[in-house]
């Protein structure tokens, strides 16, 4: 039941938060905080196991496995299971949930109850995505988590929020529908080949389907995940959604929601369609590389801070795609690491932009400048995360990008050379961001009321810094944690010395 409890805590917490608004407008955020903290409780035992006796989990892939029946007529189960990979991403989700909460704490003043309901439900949906092992259930979470996110953007967003929210929803849903088709087709083909009607990932994994259709099914899945990632031709929802979303939603979006795409590829596409993904790999890597360069170039010309960061996400997630399809353990570990590191660094940048906007009421790069002299601490954090996003060694992003490039270099050296140019381009836009925002003479009227980071903000940002540094300097525990999940992919011989 542990996993179900994990799933239900934010759901119930959200309901309570909404209801509590009737009594006091400040109550919802406290309830949200408590329920987010409660979510750590179910994680206690797996984390404890890993930290203190790390031999046991290496043997079996699943740390926790909870199959239940749901819709027997289609043999659909409410099957939740957790392995190292999902544990890692859930931890990220919960951490970023706290960050989002912290950034919303003072920013959201209207309709707080409903806001926290949506926030918590989005998190619950994401946790569900990471836990669901039944394909149908996965799809359900995949789609449902978008609804509260849609509300977050469309109610609490900025000027052009309605457009952005609808765009976000339609893009991701279109991808989702494609996935539904592929999913049903997969089950159908599997039924034809084995006579077994099942949506269970573990069972489907035993007989990977083959044939022409497998390629198209794999493509359908991949496109659904590419939309979420977002990879190149489907990326255009992201800048709009990020720009218009409130800070907390941006954080969740960048830190967690995008990761479901990468997770989906690693969890489903690669193991379920080993042959098809081999065929897909070159084109996917090409898309990844184009995404890296294109995103970076787009980021370079943006004048809206949030848009800049959003396009940088496109660029960074291109690395994830590259890593997923490079077919070796380095690149895969790198892709997972990139998901974590990008989650933290980018959401930190969004938090920072939120803080700047809260203080100066603008995100326009041309109207900002010289913040360092006014807000030294905040600017120092800005500098740090800007540097992180350009892949400074010693931080998580570097480890990730290094491994991804290393892995993909082994497969496709020429493509990787282009991908590596992303490192230069990342430097260009990150430095531009730092240069335009924090350096130079201060612009605009002096407002003495604007103050530097308060303790809450400081602690939030600092802890994110530390996580990034930890990821950069001691990533080994994370590699170990996901090692089993990643080596279970058929193309990686599991006997590589560990």
């Amino acid at each position, binding site marked *: 039941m542990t996993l179900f409890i994990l799933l239900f805590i934010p759901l119930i917490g959200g309901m309570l938060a909404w209801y509590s608004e009737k009594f006091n407008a400040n109550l919802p955020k406290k309830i949200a905080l408590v329920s987010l903290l409660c979510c750590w409780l179910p994680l206690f035992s797996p984390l404890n196991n890993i930290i203190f006796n790390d031999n046991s989990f290496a043997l079996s892939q699943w740390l926790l496995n909870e199959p239940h029946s749901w819709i027997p007529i289609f043999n659909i189960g409410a099957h939740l299971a957790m392995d190292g990979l999902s544990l890692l991403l859930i931890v990220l989700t919960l951490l970023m949930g706290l960050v989002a909460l912290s950034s919303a704490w003072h920013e959201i003043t209207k309709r707080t109850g409903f806001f926290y309901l949506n926030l918590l439900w989005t998190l619950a949906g994401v946790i569900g995505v990471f836990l669901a092992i039944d394909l149908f259930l996965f799809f359900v979470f995949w789609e449902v988590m978008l609804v509260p996110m849609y509300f977050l953007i469309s109610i609490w967003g900025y000027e052009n929020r309605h457009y952005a929210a609808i*765009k976000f929803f339609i893009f991701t849903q279109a991808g989702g529908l494609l996935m539904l088709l592929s999913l049903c087709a997969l089950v159908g083909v599997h039924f034809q080949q084995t006579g077994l009607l099942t949506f269970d990932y573990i069972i489907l994994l035993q007989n990977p389907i083959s044939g022409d259709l497998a390629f198209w099914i794999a493509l359908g899945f991949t496109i659904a995940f590419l939309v979420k990632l977002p990879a*190149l*031709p489907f*990326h*255009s929802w992201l*800048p709009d959604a990020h720009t218009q979303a409130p800070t907390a939603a941006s954080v969740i979006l960048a830190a967690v929601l995008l990761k479901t795409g990468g997770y989906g590829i690693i969890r489903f596409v690669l193991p379920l369609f080993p042959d098809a993904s081999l065929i897909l790999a070159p084109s996917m890597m090409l898309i990844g590389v184009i995404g890296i360069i294109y995103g970076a*170039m*787009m980021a*370079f*010309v*943006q004048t809206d801070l949030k848009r800049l960061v959003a396009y940088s996400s496109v660029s960074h997630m291109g690395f994830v795609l590259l890593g997923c399809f490079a077919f070796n*353990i*380095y690149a895969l*570990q790198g892709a997972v690491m990139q998901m974590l590191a990008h989650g933290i660094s980018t959401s930190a940048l969004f938090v920072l932009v939120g803080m700047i906007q809260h203080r100066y009421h603008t995100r326009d790069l041309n109207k900002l400048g*010289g913040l*360092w*002299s006014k807000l030294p601490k905040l600017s120092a954090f800005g*500098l740090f995360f800007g*540097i992180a996003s350009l892949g*400074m*060694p*010693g931080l998580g992003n*570097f*480890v990730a990008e*290094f*491994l991804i*490039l*290393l892995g993909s*270099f*082994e497969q496709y*050296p020429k493509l*990787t*050379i282009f991908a*590596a*140019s992303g*490192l*230069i381009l990342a*430097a*260009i836009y990150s*430095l*531009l961001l730092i*240069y335009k925002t*924090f*350096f*130079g*003479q201060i612009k605009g009227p002096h407002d003495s009321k604007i103050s530097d980071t308060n303790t809450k903000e400081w602690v939030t940002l600092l802890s994110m810094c530390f996580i990034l540094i930890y990821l950069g*300097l*001691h*990533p*080994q525990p994370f*590699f170990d944690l996901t*090692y089993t999940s990643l080596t279970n992919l058929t193309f990686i011989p599991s006997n*590589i*010395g*560990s």
Partner: protein
Amino acid sequence: MTYYASLLSLIPLLPLFSALILLFSKPNKLTTALLAVGSISGAACISLFLNFVFWQQTDFVLTSNLGNWIKIAQLHINFSLYLDALSLVMITIITGVGALIHLYSIGFMYQDKDFKRYFTYLNLFVSAMLFLVLADNLLLLYLGWEGVGLCSYLLIGFWYQDRDNNLAANKAFLMTRIGDTAMALGLFLLFIELGTLNIQDLQVQALSVWSSSNNNMANLCCLLLLGGALGKSAQFPLQNWLPDAMAGPTPVSALIHAATMVTAGIYLIARNSQLFQMAPDVMYLIAFIGTITLLLGASAAMVQSDLKRILAYSTISQLGYMFLALGVGAGASAVFHLMTHAFFKALLFLSAGALIYSLHHEHNIFKMGGLLKKLPIVATSFAIGCAALASLPFTSGFFSKELILEQLIDSGHTNFWWAAVLGAFITAFYSARLFFVVFLGDSKQSPDKQPEKIMSLVLLLLCFFSLFGGIQPSGIQTLMPKLNASGLTTLQHWLPIVLPFIAISLAWWMFKTNLFGKTITVPALQYFHQLLKSGWAFDRIYQVIFVSPFKFLCQLNKSDIIDLHYRALEKISKLLHKKFSQFQNGKLRCYNASLIIFCVLAFAWFIKGALMS
């Protein structure tokens, strides 16, 4: 040995901790200075101690493991430090010169409100540089490599309120980043080819895997590594960030952009000398690039009017010498020159700093003059620095440069020798010019303050090193296979010694006839002068070839072409909606017709089908 190992790990960690403490606390200026300088001095003391311990040995190795970093499949990366003769020399220079410059900075930066931030960055830099030098694997080296780049960026743009400084910082970071990316690719290739990133293992593996010399893969790997070195050491064609990097505080220029960071490229090649030995083509390329750079830098230095830019171009030029030496296989002499250069260039920069400090941030040498009497200490140290730079006999620069020239002959590259000698001539010429213009002649500006005592002290110390630092460390001589001494001809022996004097005389003559400050009237000459002054117009070339097209391309796509398609989709659907809505005109007869049209169409389809079959 464990005792030494822990001492070794203290060397980079001391400045790191100091930087962290400075970052998270709010000490007053005195504590800041004590902490910063203390940590570096501590590191310097330890390295001196290690020097003392290992003085006799040429073949010692000291390692220390700080922990595990990445371990996936065959990729094992540790935070391991590796000390041998080469890195010992390097850390000695870094901590020694670093400590002096820290000390100097107390005086120089005391008035600055960001005193703490300055020392934080500086400590961080030293730590990163030490990691770079001590790394036992290329990835850790890369960490230090990028770390020093970052600190360089931060310190160039230290006075952040001036946009030009930030632009210079960005330029420095980006240009080195280009090289770094090549280097990263080199790392990948090396790992894939040789299966390790440990530097020592790489040398061994390279010998066994690439059995034949001049293997293509070896060439490629070395070429990629060389890319990193070119960027960091400001070599052609990535040299033009260095003059702009002078926007930072002068001690920073001394430490980072003269003495230490820019030599990282030389260190990288020297460190992997066995690897590079496998790639003679690349070695030749290195020598060639070194030659171009040394001439290019020296010629540009001749005509500059900004004090620090002269020194910057001279740094480029001197680094060119070191590259040339590396390229011809004279690694030891390159490192030797690196060391002496660190001393005299630090001295020059620090004296320039003192000058600037006294003259209220005046950079233009033509607005100075006649300062010999007014700033005697600065003038003395400047004179010594210039002498070493011009490699006048018995200064430290003389020994190292002579060694390089000698080994050029030994290796049989006579044409390179001629270029190097020409470079030496120009070097002496602009050193003399610099000194004459600043310190002799009419007084144009009087200093409003004398340099702080602590600054003078550091200058004097460095004067000592610049004069008497010309002792080649014994350990590094085994760096590359010894070249056969072929013996020099008389001309080859005396020309480099005599030439500086000729150059100085020429400069003196020109100074006396007031040729230096004069505006040039001959158009061709003026054009040439401009070309030189802009450092052979590399900024313009890159602007035209790379920057502008890139910006144009990005601007072209500002509204995201792909997004435009989706927007077009929206427009199309709006159009379709309008079209379909037109039929909803409320007219009953139209609706009647719709039923009948369906019927007719179905029949038509049917008849068509029937006719076809």
